[in-house]
């Protein structure tokens, strides 16, 4: 790479030429191509990355800092028993095909999630909606069977965006939403194009045209940014190249957080992990910083529980599982495994798992635990580990926002069964006041941290490399999104 440096000077000329006029178009690269363009019919994050808040909008929406603000619903009222949400919709909202967005569309969209034949990946989040009724064209009443303090948050997910019955037929290839950008074209395998929608109800975006490109190979990603084929790469896949971009005045690098708690998932029902002393030993055997440095090139925030560290309700519990191999050995001896034991470590494809797995296996070996690594593809991982629960250890980043409630489900793949925690989650669901919720969330984080349910490693980082003049891109990824509404080029 050294001869590269000496030659980059030549490209400075091209840079000067490109700075003449303020640009209003953008080419953004992401790693994976969406399999289809229906955010309500699949779990693939790439769908939301392209479409969330650009083409589709929901009743509420996430902002860059993770807060939930009004979207297509201008305001709402929650009944005293917490069971009825009455949403007032914004005036003058139209879909890109020109039809008006009104209460009927909202009812259609929400009913569709809960329909018998629904293929919505997050159906569970909306399962306790029992009725959606149209009060008048601008007002919708949503009734729940029990209070759900997360409802406004859940409605901000890409899976709950508002769609129209008129255009639902072809949503997978021709998405029609209410957002500031309308979908123009999809050249499968290469790019998706969109342009500003003239009839948008809100502030017009600064950009007039946007192209998304899909580059999965890390080397190709590096080349595309270096050659300035793309203006920004969100979720840049080659962290080893970031210092080079940081040193280059043509580019800026944004290192932010995702909602991905990366954990050493542990099968809590499989001996010897059914013994909390063994799980605690594993937790103390792990050196988080070594994993972050070795596997993630230093990017990632250590966590001590299953909660995003940038969330105001996060409690720092790293102290519960400091790196201490001697303590780990002592705990193993107490549990009757003085000579250690052998287990499986099944790794999905992302580099955090593959690279991190090697380091963790080495760290576990130091305390006498032999972890046999096997590398799986995602589909295999879902079948064997997630569904079949046939694993000892695994490494996965849980990217769903605010997903601590998975610990209340004893059938979830890591099989943590704690009645106290389950009761706590029920209480949390029934609580809508923010202070009460904070206290309950803190308690929940502490319980799972002290029970060493899983090995808590780090919050997955996301890096964006962009040209120097580009502003308004999200630093963090509170949900998978490349929100272009606030993006512009500096004059």
């Amino acid at each position, binding site marked *: 790479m050294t001869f590269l440096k000496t030659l980059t000077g030549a490209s400075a000329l091209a840079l000067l030429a490109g700075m003449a006029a303020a640009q209003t178009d953008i080419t953004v690269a992401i790693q994976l191509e969406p399999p289809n363009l229906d955010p309500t019919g699949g779990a693939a994050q790439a769908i939301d990355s392209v479409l969330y808040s650009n083409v589709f909008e929901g009743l509420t929406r996430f902002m860059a800092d993770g807060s939930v603000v009004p979207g297509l619903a201008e305001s709402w009222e929650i009944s005293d028993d917490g069971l009825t949400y009455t949403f007032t919709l914004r005036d003058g909202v139209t879909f890109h095909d020109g039809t008006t967005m009104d209460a009927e569309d909202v009812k259609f969209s929400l009913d569709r999630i809960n329909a018998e034949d629904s293929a919505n990946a997050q159906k569970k989040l909306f399962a306790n909606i029992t009725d959606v009724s149209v009060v008048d064209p601008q007002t919708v009443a949503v009734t729940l069977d029990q209070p759900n303090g997360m409802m406004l948050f859940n409605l901000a997910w890409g899976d709950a965006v508002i769609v129209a019955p008129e255009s639902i037929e072809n949503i997978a290839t021709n998405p029609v939403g209410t957002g500031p950008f309308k979908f123009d074209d999809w050249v499968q395998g290469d790019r998706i194009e969109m342009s500003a929608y003239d009839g948008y109800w809100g502030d017009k975006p600064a950009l007039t045209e946007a192209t998304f490109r899909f580059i999965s190979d890390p080397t190709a990603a590096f080349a595309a940014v270096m*050659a300035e084929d793309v203006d920004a790469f969100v979720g840049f896949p080659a962290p080893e190249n970031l210092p080079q971009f940081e040193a280059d005045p043509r580019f800026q690098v944004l290192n932010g957080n995702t909602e991905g708690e990366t954990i050493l998932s542990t099968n809590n029902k499989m001996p010897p992990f059914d013994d909390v002393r063994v799980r605690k030993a594993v937790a103390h055997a792990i050196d988080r910083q070594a994993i972050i440095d070795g596997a993630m090139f230093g990017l990632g925030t250590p966590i001590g529980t299953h909660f995003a560290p940038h969330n105001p309700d996060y409690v720092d519990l790293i102290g519960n599982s400091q790196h201490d191999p001697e303590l780990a050995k002592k705990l193993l001896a107490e549990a009757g495994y003085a000579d250690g034991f052998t287990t499986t470590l099944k790794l999905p494809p992302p580099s955090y798992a593959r690279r991190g797995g090697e380091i963790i296996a080495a760290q576990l070996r130091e305390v006498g635990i032999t972890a046999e690594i096997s590398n799986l593809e995602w589909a295999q991982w879902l079948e064997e580990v997630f569904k079949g629960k046939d694993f000892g250890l695994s490494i996965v980043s849980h990217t769903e926002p605010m997903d601590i409630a998975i610990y209340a489900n004893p059938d979830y793949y890591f099989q943590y069964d704690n009645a106290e925690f389950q009761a706590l989650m029920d209480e949390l669901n029934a609580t809508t006041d923010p202070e009460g919720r904070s206290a309950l969330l803190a308690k929940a984080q502490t319980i799972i941290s002290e029970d060493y349910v899983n090995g808590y490693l780090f919050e997955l980082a996301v890096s964006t490399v962009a040209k120097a003049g580009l502003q308004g891109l999200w630093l963090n990824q509170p949900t998978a999104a490349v929100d272009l509404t606030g993006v512009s080029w500096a004059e």
Partner: protein
Amino acid sequence: MIQYALRRFVSLVVSLIVASIVIFAVVEVIPGDPAAFMLGVNAQEDTLNALREQMGLNDPLPVRYFNWVTGMLSGDFGNSWTYKAPVAEMIADRIWVSLPLAIYALILSTLIAFPAGIYAASRRGKPGDIAVMGATQLGVAIPNFWFAMILVLIFAINLRWFSAGGFPGWENPFDALKSLTLPAIALALPQAAILARVMRSSLLDMLGEDFIRTARAKGLTRRQALWRHAVRNALIPVLTIIGLQFSFLLAGGIIIEQVFFLPGLGRLIFQSISARDLIVVESVVMLLVFVVILVNFAVDLAYAVVDPRLRSRV
């Protein structure tokens, strides 16, 4: 000649039937539930079932095989599960990248290999021959993806003559060809190296044959004998290699298409396998097998044209 062609044709049909069974069987036994992949970790069992029903995954295997084959025969490749688009359309889009790329690379490879091979053979043992052989040794040894990265580094990142990848579409043929140039060179050079070596050794074999001596005895110069008699006879092994190479270039573009993020068939297969989009994988692989078998069929016929003795062989 007709009998020869018929025999080849029957073997083509049998190969296709066997291939379709093997492909279907292999793809269906890959572990992993496509519905679970699409819906991710939060999906409920009833949602998964609804999706499996929509995708026809609940039908028994023989029924699915039968539907697939009869569909293909009538030109209907079915619908992709993840892309929710007709597979035939997706293949039609992608083939306009992969096929031109393979042909472009094959032309480049032949244009380089023929002169190089003939030159080396006619200068046997002299410095020119040694230089060509040295260069081809290097060409055979260098993996094409590495070569591709070097090309990107030089021509896209530093010189900025080409973009680092992507494909603009055929609306502007010049831009389209330009975007295929670096990938075609990366694909062609290692193939050219192999082809040049085959061309050279095949020619040298011919030059030792009796009929060349006869030709020389008739008064032809060494060069005349080479061009009039040896080259034509040396073409048979070269044609075989070209046939194999075309199949390789078409299917083997997978890695090169990744490096240059080209929306071709290779990339489609790659994405479909990881998404467990079995119907797409099966159809694209079947198509590639069909092309390979068809190319081999064409090569067999070409032998007969080049070597009349083969026509009468039963």
